[in-house]
């Protein structure tokens, strides 16, 4: 059975009226979005800026229940009950006054879990996330890539087996971004979670995903659902293959 099931999701934003107008304006952001995601699948949501990708992720995270249509996660209707998920945004949101470890402990702290035990679980992971020896550093002493990895480690330590990643590498330079993609796949293959990855970078979407959902400009809906049939583990060579260019072409034409 699918893990995420979205059916005909429609979302309006209420915009404050401009000068002269009295009524609030309703802005249609998502116009009937439907899709399924299987357990442990890596799915990218690709679309132009402002198409409602982030809005869709906010709905999935349970941050906004004011929509039409329905979203089910593991059979639970999100309008009725919050389902714990892992969530990450483009900004790392590491707290500058906390050390790296204290930042990664945040989800456990909020849940009221045993922090000593959690720290013992995190320590071996620091190595895999390339953050060994930086446990007691504050975020400002870390590079952009390291901060993003720390944020991702914190995301991993959140409860839930769905990862909602909202352009997590959007603020990184191209070289760091490529390193982070390789590394994300590495980690994902080891710790398997279902991933919904929002991006507007076509190469990134194809390289990482099992499926790419292409969204139309606002009001957003899914115009194409493309299965990416590259074997895993993925390698950079596939970026130069004609099959890759084929996918890219398919996406580009569906974005027009």
């Amino acid at each position, binding site marked *: 059975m699918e893990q995420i099931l979205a059916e005909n999701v429609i979302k309006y934003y209420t915009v404050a009226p401009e000068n002269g107008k009295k009524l609030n304006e309703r802005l249609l952001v998502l116009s009937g979005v439907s899709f399924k995601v299987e357990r442990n699948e890596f799915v990218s949501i690709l679309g132009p800026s402002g198409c409602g990708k982030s809005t869709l992720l906010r709905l999935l995270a349970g941050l906004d229940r004011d929509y039409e249509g329905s979203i089910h996660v593991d059979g639970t209707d999100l309008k009725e009950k*919050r389902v714990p998920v892992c*969530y990450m*945004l483009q900004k790392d949101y590491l707290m*500058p006054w906390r050390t790296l470890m204290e930042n990664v402990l945040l989800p456990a702290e909020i849940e009221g879990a045993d922090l000593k035990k959690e720290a013992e679980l995190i320590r071996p992971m620091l190595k895999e996330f390339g953050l060994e020896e930086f446990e007691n550093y*504050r975020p*400002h002493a870390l590079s952009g890539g390291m901060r993003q990895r720390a944020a991702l480690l914190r995301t991993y330590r959140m409860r839930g087996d769905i990862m909602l990643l909202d352009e997590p590498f959007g603020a990184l330079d191209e070289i760091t971004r490529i390193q982070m993609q390789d590394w994300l796949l590495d980690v994902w293959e080891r710790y398997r979670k279902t991933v919904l990855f929002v991006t507007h970078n076509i190469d990134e979407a194809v390289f990482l995903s099992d499926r790419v959902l292409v969204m139309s400009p606002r009001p957003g809906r899914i115009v194409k659902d493309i299965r990416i049939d590259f074997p895993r583990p993925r390698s950079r060579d596939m970026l130069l293959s004609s099959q890759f260019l084929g996918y890219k072409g398919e996406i580009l034409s569906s974005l027009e």
Partner: protein
Amino acid sequence: MKRRSENTRPKAKKGIDWLPIGFSLLLLILWQVGVVINDVPEFILPSPVKVIEELIGSWQILMEHTLITVAEALLGLSASILLGAALGLAMGYFRTFRRMVYPLFVITQTVPLFVLAPLFILWFGFGILPKIVVVFMVCFFPIAVTFAQGLIRSDSGMDDLLKVMGATRWKIFRITRIPQALPYFFSGLKIAATYGIVGAVLAEWVGAQKGLGVFMTRAMKSFRTGALFADVLIVVLLSLILYKSVEWAERIVCKDMSNGGNIT
């Protein structure tokens, strides 16, 4: 990996900045020379040297008065910090409370202190309590308002992230909003610190047995302008010390807040 270059911000130069000191000294010398050359009588404008002589001559009695004023200022300031922080927190947390009390707070700042100070004496007696209340009236406002402002300002992304982790509103405040608002709190506290001594002195003017304000009125009535200036000098120095202490506390508390933060 390399440290981010944007973090290598220019550090403040160590040591003393001689330019303002030199310039102030120059003004003092001009003042001294001007008074001596023009033979200005002391009761109109005492020379800096004369002020220092008065300071040394009346040291004992000045210190007695200083002690009282400092006590009033510190007690009033402490009350402002405790209550100001509590009020600021309540204003930041409860929108309704903010809407209710904020206009009242502004009004307290518009009522002339010369009216309030004698009223406080009527209400709280001739001791140091009415002086403490005057200091409080002046100092709680910047603390409460800046702290509330810092608490209200937030990045919705940070809040969203914590909400997805399951944080309640109070947890969001405790974990991110309050630490983020601390620099604001301190900028309010710095303003309050500069008002503390002056507030106490002003309250003493209206009626008191002891304090730098009392000494001031006596010196004025007897045309001892030199003593008056010596008194003012102490007020200035005390205010500076208070201000610098707050700056120092801020540096310790907020040392990890501002650099390289990706939150605000």
